[in-house]
């Protein structure tokens, strides 16, 4: 009887302890894995270099210490982009004071969206360009990169052109892995993306402790 009581007591103690320890949530790494030299590796966004709104070259390596949300847009886009930009601005506002988060918008119309025009666009949006980058580069390279982001997020390499997925907001971690995405034209999806950013940050903060 004495042993049974001790057993029940210990079981209860274990239960209370495990309830108190909240499991750290983790976002999946999206995209198909590749086999490199016999080892399975996660998908990673390829290296890129673009000009920012101040005509200065920036690369994905400049984002190695932050998580970032990206989208593909152009200033004259009449239907989708105004909606996705509204949602990007919501994300921006939510993490405005958090240096661990950045936003990156790539133009797919580099001919018209020159760095100076992008700077003006950012100014109209009333956003800080150190926090939210507006990037311009070679059109073909931008399309390739867009397809990589979209097709990875959706694991949908069969969609020709992948631009059925344009208008998406894509969350990338510090290692260039895509971790989450949302439909930029649907405001109801943005809170989930914001929540996923917080989950990803928690993941880093827990690992750094």
């Amino acid at each position, binding site marked *: 009887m004495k042993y049974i009581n001790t057993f029940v007591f210990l079981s209860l103690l274990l239960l209370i302890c495990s309830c108190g320890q909240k499991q750290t949530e983790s976002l999946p790494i999206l995209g198909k894995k590749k086999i490199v030299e016999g080892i399975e590796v996660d998908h990673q966004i390829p290296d890129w270099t673009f000009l920012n709104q101040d005509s200065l070259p920036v690369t994905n390596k400049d984002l190695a210490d932050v998580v970032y949300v990206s989208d593909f847009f152009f200033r004259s886009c009449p239907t989708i982009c105004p909606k996705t930009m509204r949602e990007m601005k919501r994300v921006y506002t939510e993490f405005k004071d958090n240096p661990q988060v950045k936003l990156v918008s790539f133009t*797919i119309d580099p001919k*018209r969206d020159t760095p100076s025009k992008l700077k003006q666009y950012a100014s109209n949006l009333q956003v800080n360009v150190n926090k939210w980058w507006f990037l311009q580069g070679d059109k*073909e390279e931008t399309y390739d990169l867009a397809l990589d982001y979209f097709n990875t997020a959706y694991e949908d390499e069969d969609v*020709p052109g992948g631009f059925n997925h*344009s208008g998406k907001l894509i969350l990338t971690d510090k290692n260039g892995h895509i971790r989450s995405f949302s439909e930029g034209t649907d405001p109801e999806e943005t809170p989930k993306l914001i929540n996923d950013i917080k989950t990803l940050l928690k993941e880093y903060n827990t690992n750094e402790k």
Partner: protein
Amino acid sequence: MKNIICLFSFCFLFLACKDTTKTANLEAEVIAIHDEVMPKMGDIHLAKKNLRKILTSTENDSVKTQVLSIITDLENADEGMMEWMANWNVPEDNNEKINYLGQEKINITKVKDDMISSLELAANFINKHNNK
């Protein structure tokens, strides 16, 4: 007298309302054509990539000339869409709006036709070349 004024006001309101509905419908039609073909911009990009692969893998000058001509068509179609969007600016005035939207319906239909025909041309050429 009062009745006549009332009747005229009513008629004026009715006609104005009818015009606004007409322009709203016309604008929706124009945008619908744009939205239908806009996702094909990615297809144009992929077609160009596939054509460039052919260009680097062939020594045949006639094939090279055909490929370059199709790439130019695709690029013109792409540029046509980007230019159309950059110029899209619906006037405030209702009468001007109807004329503008009527013209833009013609313009965006041409953009759509150019995109579809250049993509078809590219797809046919690529299929034919790869099945040789």
